[in-house]
């Protein structure tokens, strides 16, 4: 086992591993690209949806249960289905990742909106604020911590799942897992897994640190 660990350390630190189209640096960049882009798209869909449901109160059932539905969606099945429909392209990857991220963004955005003290909203309306003013100047800022949590959790999930790109021949860190499997190179498989975990953790710690900093003046 120490042998394996030693080989892993060598794999992670050797310069030649990092260089080239098959190298760690390139795969890392690809992986981050898939993850960030997919989360961005998911946010563009999920945030407005969550804000709308939270503001109007309509469709709450959807917001609460969407997360369950998203969690149940088998990523492999979705990727294969889109692949069969659209052929060899990044569509299967992005659709699967966006489908994974949207539910948790919607649910957390909705949760953030419902956590806003109704008295505050009333006071705002009482001051004569119109609907959209209440939404953007009162509710959204107050809901922001939970919304950011939702975005952070979605990003982490997407990073872990972006290995899926390797199912349909694309890059990212999942490539190491699949190629390592095909080439009987356990170190490569382990390396890919460890890299994904490290990226996810670094992003998680970084973003939660950012969250704490941004909301440092807020009380509970």
């Amino acid at each position, binding site marked *: 086992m120490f042998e394996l660990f030693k080989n892993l350390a060598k794999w992670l630190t050797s310069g030649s591993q990092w260089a080239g189209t098959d190298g760690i640096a390139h795969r890392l960049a690809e992986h981050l690209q898939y993850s960030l882009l997919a989360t961005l798209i998911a946010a563009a869909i999920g945030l407005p949806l969550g804000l709308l449901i939270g503001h109007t109160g309509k469709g709450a059932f959807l917001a609460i249960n969407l997360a369950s539905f998203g969690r149940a969606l088998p990523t492999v099945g979705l990727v294969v289905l889109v*692949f069969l429909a659209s052929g*060899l392209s990044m569509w299967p990857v992005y659709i699967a990742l966006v489908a994974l991220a949207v539910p948790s963004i919607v649910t957390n955005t909705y949760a953030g909106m419902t956590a806003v003290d109704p008295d505050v909203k009333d006071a705002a309306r009482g001051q004569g604020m119109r609907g959209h003013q209440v939404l953007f100047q009162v509710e959204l800022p107050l809901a922001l911590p939970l919304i950011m949590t939702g975005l952070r959790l979605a990003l982490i999930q997407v990073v872990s799942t972006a290995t899926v790109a390797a199912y349909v021949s694309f890059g990212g860190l999942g490539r190491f897992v699949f190629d390592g499997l095909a080439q009987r190179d356990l170190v490569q498989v382990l390396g890919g897994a460890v890299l994904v975990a490290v990226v996810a*953790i670094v992003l998680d710690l970084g973003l939660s640190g950012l969250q704490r900093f941004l909301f440092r003046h807020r009380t509970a």
Partner: protein
Amino acid sequence: MNRRTLLGALAGTAVAVPVLSSCASGVTSLDGGGSTGGGSASSKNGVTIGTANFTENQVLGYLYAAALEAAGVKVKVRPNLGTREIVFPALKSGDIDLLPEYQGSLLTYLQPKSKVAEAGEMQNALTLALPSGLQVLPYGIAEDADCFVVTRATARKYGLTSLADLAKHNGKLTLGASAEVKTRQVGVVGLKGVYGVEFKEFKSLDSDGPLVKGALKKGDVDVANLFTTDTDIKANDWVVLTDPKTLIPSQHIVPLIADRVADPTVRKALARLGNLLTTAQLTELNRQVDKDKKDPEDVANTYAKQHGITK
């Protein structure tokens, strides 16, 4: 996440990596433990047939099953288990007992540097190369070889008829195949060694699967690694590059079996099937599964009935 959980996460990472590594403690490859031989062979307790993750292997698996069941052996088929890298260790560790294999590919899997190419020679080379507890039974007449294929347009554009022609365009063409082809003799390594071919890029797809065929059609790869029994080759007017220096060894289909179940009943049943199934017939069975969307099991059973293996 408060500070304690943050420190916990860091400590967790420091622990998780060795924890993960210790998952494969003492193992540096994907192989599980070897099987222990000994005792006389018997198929009384049934035979578990495993198959790899492509159509033809599943058809073969169910054909083996039909042949064995007709001979009175209890059979269980575990289809679509994965690539050889997953399936072979399963055979060694006893999770499965019998596997339809291909002479050449199996030999290069066991001995990457092997240059043996003739069918009879390979049979002996395999017997020598296999770990104890496993053996190959006599090979059947049907054959399915790896081949390297280009589109008719590519062949015309670069003047390609044989693998040797590829060397005239080094650094220009992209090869698509499953990942292990990058590191094996019947693949990038051998093409360089025997024909002096160097590709511009290698794309990890699959061999003779939807990914590489899709890529070939789209033009994402110039050369694709396919199998000779694939009817898509003819259907798409693809050109199989010839192999004058016999890089690609003979690939007769051969049952790879654990010693402990290789008793006379099993041997005879598989020998009967081996002499019966021709390459053309196998190609047709593959077509029925891939194009007509029939189940491998049904296709195999129908064949078995038609050819008198089962009543």
